[in-house]
């Protein structure tokens, strides 16, 4: 289609923590420096930079793109911030892909940062004005409120129980025990999840990923440059993004059609015809346990309504047919929003290079998909990676 092929050649990731001493620029620098060091590049070798970060309200710094610039290596360079709500972390490498695929540059640094701990006591207040001021805000909605409506409708549509869904949280929190960046890894039982504090039925505390601080970065390169830099490039062979209506009450709530559209765009570009057979590792966005199931279906990795059953059967375990969130996901590694999405892409990078250590899935996987989601249950961002 006239695009240049783009590879990921390096990656860096900070720890995800409840509250980091580091400022946002300091976190951004840690991830960026690690990413450059991992492929033996210097900042001067980077031609363009794109930085993804979610709402300014999280860090509490307006014009966050400019605030984070120096730590992302952006001083005196072609630098720009991208933002599509919770979908930002996977959109950031897509934005970097545009820079390289278009021929605008050969080496692009992609950085994603979030420091949610500045916002006290929680970042919930940042979400009040995402709701319609006339028809929703008078009811004092919280973010969890709308996900409770979505989760309940999903359960109703497919006859699922909370326990069916809680298995996702159990799996991901356990997977995260092998992730050096993890914030909330641990061994939990389904009962632990079911009996955790209720927030808005059917959503309980352990169904949700925690807020946190962290940053991630990858280095993208054009084909020629990538082959000079490494003998194990991971190709960004498909990218897709899609936004559904902002009138979220008009949606069916049980199927993320925008994720499907984003996925189809990415699969077409990558030449993937039967995703459930061709994809060998998946990192769907899992800020809530039911969202992983939702997103597996939207990503066409299983038939609609089947994701919970497959999870119960071990199909999505690290040793299963389709390991899903082998990183530990947002539920286990943590969820500093934009950094989480890019963490998922980095997990594909490591899995496809065979460098995931204790998290390495068997069978030398060659094709993976990562996805993020956000805004008003509205945006799907998808990348397909291939080794």
């Amino acid at each position, binding site marked *: 289609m006239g695009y240049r092929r783009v590879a990921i050649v390096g990656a860096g990731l900070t720890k995800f923590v409840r509250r980091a001493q580091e*400022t946002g620029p300091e976190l951004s620098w840690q991830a960026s420096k690690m990413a*450059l060091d991992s492929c033996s590049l*210097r900042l001067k070798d980077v031609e363009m930079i794109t930085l993804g970060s979610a709402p300014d*309200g999280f860090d509490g710094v307006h014009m966050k793109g400019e605030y984070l610039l120096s730590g992302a290596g952006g*001083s005196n360079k072609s630098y720009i911030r991208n933002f599509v709500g919770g979908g930002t972390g996977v959109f950031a490498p897509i934005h970097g892909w545009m820079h390289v695929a278009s021929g605008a540059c050969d080496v692009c640094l992609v950085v994603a940062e979030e420091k949610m701990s*500045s*916002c006290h006591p929680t970042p919930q207040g*940042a979400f*009040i004005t995402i709701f319609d001021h006339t028809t929703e805000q008078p009811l004092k909605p919280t973010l969890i409120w709308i996900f409770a409506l979505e989760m309940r409708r999903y359960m109703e549509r497919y006859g699922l129980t909370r326990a069916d869904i809680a298995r996702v949280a159990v799996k991901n929190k356990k997977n995260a025990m092998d992730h050096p960046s993890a914030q909330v890894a641990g061994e939990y039982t389904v009962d632990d999840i079911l009996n955790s504090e209720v927030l808005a039925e059917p959503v309980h505390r352990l169904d949700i990923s925690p807020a946190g601080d962290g940053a991630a970065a990858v280095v993208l390169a054009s084909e020629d440059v990538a082959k000079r830099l490494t003998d194990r490039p991971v190709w960004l062979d498909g990218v897709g993004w899609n936004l559904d209506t902002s009138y979220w009450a008009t949606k069916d709530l049980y199927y993320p059609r925008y994720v499907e559209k984003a996925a189809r765009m990415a699969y077409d570009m990558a030449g993937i015809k039967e995703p459930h057979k061709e994809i060998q590792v998946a990192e769907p966005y899992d800020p809530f346990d039911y969202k992983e199931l939702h997103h597996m279906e939207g990503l066409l990795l299983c038939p609609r309504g089947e994701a919970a059953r497959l999870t119960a059967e071990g199909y999505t375990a690290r040793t299963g047919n389709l390991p899903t969130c082998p990183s530990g996901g947002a539920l286990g590694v943590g969820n500093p929003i934009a950094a989480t999405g890019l963490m998922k892409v980095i997990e594909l990078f490591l899995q496809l290079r065979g460098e995931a250590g204790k998290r390495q899935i068997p069978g030398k996987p060659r094709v993976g998909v990562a996805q993020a989601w956000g805004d008003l249950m509205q945006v799907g961002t998808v990348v397909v990676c291939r080794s």
Partner: protein
Amino acid sequence: MSFQEQIKKTTSLGFFEGQVPLNYKYTMGVAGERFFQTLRDKGDFIASKCPECGTMAIYPLIYCEECFAEIKDYVSVGLTGELYSWTECSSDFKGARHEKPHLLGMVRFQGVQGGIIHRLDVPLSEIAIGMKVIAVLRPSSQRKGSLDDIQCFKKA
């Protein structure tokens, strides 16, 4: 109806009131904490020094903006600097007039990138760009490790 139509009587429009209810506690960061702890405990300004290109920066950084190297070295630069620019500010951020204009100066330090912006306590008639100024700190018992540990800059 035309898109050119203008509503002149704005009080006739329905409205709702709103606010974004957020509060923050920002960390000072690794380099920031070092700077303000040194200010509090030793009454001194420090700059970071890049191990690769030697660039010194105030406020200090844990990385060099130019070469991206990690910085662990900090050097004392003392309290005396040079007035690089100044202003006399008459109103606050809500638009209210100050009773007496606030004098603010940007102070740079020899060989250091960046500077400190703070209150300036120098008679208007004597202010000159390039003049030597020195930071007046609060007594050590009152210092808390924040920007307010500096009272102002005066003539050195």
